[in-house]
């Protein structure tokens, strides 16, 4: 029946707002609920994306630093030659040990 469709329908948001207010609906409270619901979807999408990105970046950095400390030339997933020896010094670029040698040499 067209009458019911006509009475049920509000052709615009303004008319819907006027209709709801005339019926005593707290429109402000409802629009707040709408916004909160939409925001919750957006934040849950962010939660899925963000930690994975952070973990990947952090893990990559940890592997890099670990491999560097033990003097590896390369690490899986990292560019070839990423940990190549420093040219000319004959020393491995291996973190604390290398730094200690540098300090000893300066003391002499």
């Amino acid at each position, binding site marked *: 029946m067209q009458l*019911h469709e*006509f009475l*049920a329908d*509000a052709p*615009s948001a303004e*008319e819907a707002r006027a*209709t709801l207010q005339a*019926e005593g609906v707290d429109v402000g409270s409802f629009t707040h609920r709408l916004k909160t619901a939409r925001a919750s*979807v957006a934040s849950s999408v962010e939660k899925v994306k963000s930690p994975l990105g952070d973990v990947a970046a952090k893990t990559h950095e940890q592997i890099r630093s670990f491999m560097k400390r033990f003097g590896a030339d390369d690490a899986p997933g990292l560019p070839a030659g990423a940990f190549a020896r420093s040219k000319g010094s004959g020393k491995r670029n291996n973190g604390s040990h290398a730094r200690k040698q540098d300090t000893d040499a300066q003391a002499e």
Partner: protein
Amino acid sequence: MPAPAPTFLSEADWEAYGLRLLAFTRYWAGVHYGWTEGRTLPTGRTPEDIVIEVLLAYHEGRRTITAGVATYVQLKSSVKSVLWNLHRSHGSRRVTRLTPEDFALLMDESPNPDSSVQVEDFWRAFFEALLSQPHVAKRSDMQALVRAFQGGAESIGDLAAATGMTEERISELKRQLRPIAEKAMAHLKKEGTDRESKSPEGCHAAT
């Protein structure tokens, strides 16, 4: 070539559709399922809950908007389906989240000749009940609007032509007519229920 279907509703659409759907859901639930202000629907939901859950279902991609069909028409159909399916399948049992079955589209059944006669009788009785409501009976403008519908007007343009009223005036009267139509429908349903319970079949069924 039809435009591609949007995956997400924009923030502006979200609020505009939300308000329009709430106006729709409140009336539809009132007229067809006897919902009244302050009460909940089956499963303990309110019309506001239904609107938000329908919008979320589309926004999260659990339901998809079909390209080439007006978004509002699809959202409205979902509300109708959800209301119908909640009443049909869940009764008073609470459910935490709408299931895909709750969105199952209503089947359009072609009425047989007998039921067509019943439908016509029902609407004739509905218009009589509406015209006899005090707020309608006392006012010539409201009566003119209802009679225009009875005469087959289907759009605001038809109504304006039939009544000579402006579209703004018709919109105002429409707002006033909504709760009156709900009351007329409730009255008609109650009469039908009373008649059934008083009929020999009704008495027999009750005993």
